């Protein structure tokens, strides 16, 4: 029974992000359609399901880069899912193949929402919170492809600020419930690494390097 309720809890927890993800999907559809075509943009959202990586790859294609450069840019952006996959694995069920399948529902928000703060994860929250976001992402892309320039720029509505605001809400909630001095140290270090690398590193790299701040947990 608890399984079902945590799935539903996950869907509910992800709802505040549905609108910005939909808007992000729409803007991806609008931008990508003239570069790679509407069908390719829609299929890409449905099978890659990673907004920032898709934007990175399409940006490279638009600049005239080759397949290798576009794929490398996208995968570098998705490299942050690697430590998340290792982190979540012990909380997933069954054989490796089933765990590997369930791990496909890792995205930033589902990973964070599913974390219990003690190193374990709620599998129901992970899968539940991934679902509405994915529907919004793919649906948004199709809407953007179909309606194109008819749609106002989501940026004029300030929707792009909803992503950091949502994550700030989660971080503050995290800190209030289980923050220790070490949590603050990790947050400060991760933020400092990201700021330092942003001007010089390729897109995506600052986040994966900053994730290494969690290694402060090795100290007793």
């Amino acid at each position: 029974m608890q399984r079902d309720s945590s799935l539903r809890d996950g869907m509910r927890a992800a709802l505040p992000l549905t609108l910005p993800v939909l808007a992000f999907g729409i803007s991806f559809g609008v931008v990508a359609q003239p570069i790679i075509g509407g069908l390719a943009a829609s299929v890409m959202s449905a099978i890659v399901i990673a907004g920032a990586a898709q934007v990175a790859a399409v940006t490279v294609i638009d600049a005239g880069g080759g397949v290798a450069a576009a794929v490398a840019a996208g995968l570098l952006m998705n490299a942050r899912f690697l430590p998340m996959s290792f982190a979540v694995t012990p909380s997933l069920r069954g054989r490796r193949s089933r765990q590997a399948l369930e791990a496909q529902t890792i995205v930033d928000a589902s990973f964070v929402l599913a974390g219990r703060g003690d190193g374990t994860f709620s599998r129901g929250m992970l899968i539940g919170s991934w679902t509405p976001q994915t529907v919004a992402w793919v649906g948004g892309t199709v809407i953007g492809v179909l309606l194109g320039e008819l749609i106002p720029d989501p940026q004029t509505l300030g929707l792009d600020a909803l992503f950091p605001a949502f994550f700030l809400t989660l971080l503050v909630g995290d800190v209030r419930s289980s923050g220790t001095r070490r949590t603050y140290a990790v947050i400060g270090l991760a933020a400092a690494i990201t700021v330092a690398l942003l001007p010089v590193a390729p897109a995506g790299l600052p986040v994966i390097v900053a994730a290494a701040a969690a290694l402060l947990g090795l100290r007793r």
Partner: protein
Amino acid sequence: MTAVWATIGLLCVGTIAIKAAGPLVLGDREPGGRALSVIALLSPAVLAALIVYQTFAGHPSGLTVDARVAGLAAAGAGLAARLPMLAVMVLAAAVTAAVRALG
């Protein structure tokens, strides 16, 4: 066009492989105490990095300061005042939109 589809296919396979890496390498091995404490700190580390990244990242790369900073500050103020999440989100978007319209 072939290049586009090759990019999409490889990106799809690569992303699946990245997310499957944990289960394929670890299987049902149980993490020890120190591993668990690193894992528990991964969320705040990734959150802090994403907040900074999504507020200051330029397009396609680099560091920019724009209206998103005002939106994030407004969200912070709303959280300090213990406003509900929906109000915090609306505040962040409204302030960002207003600053952008003025600027």
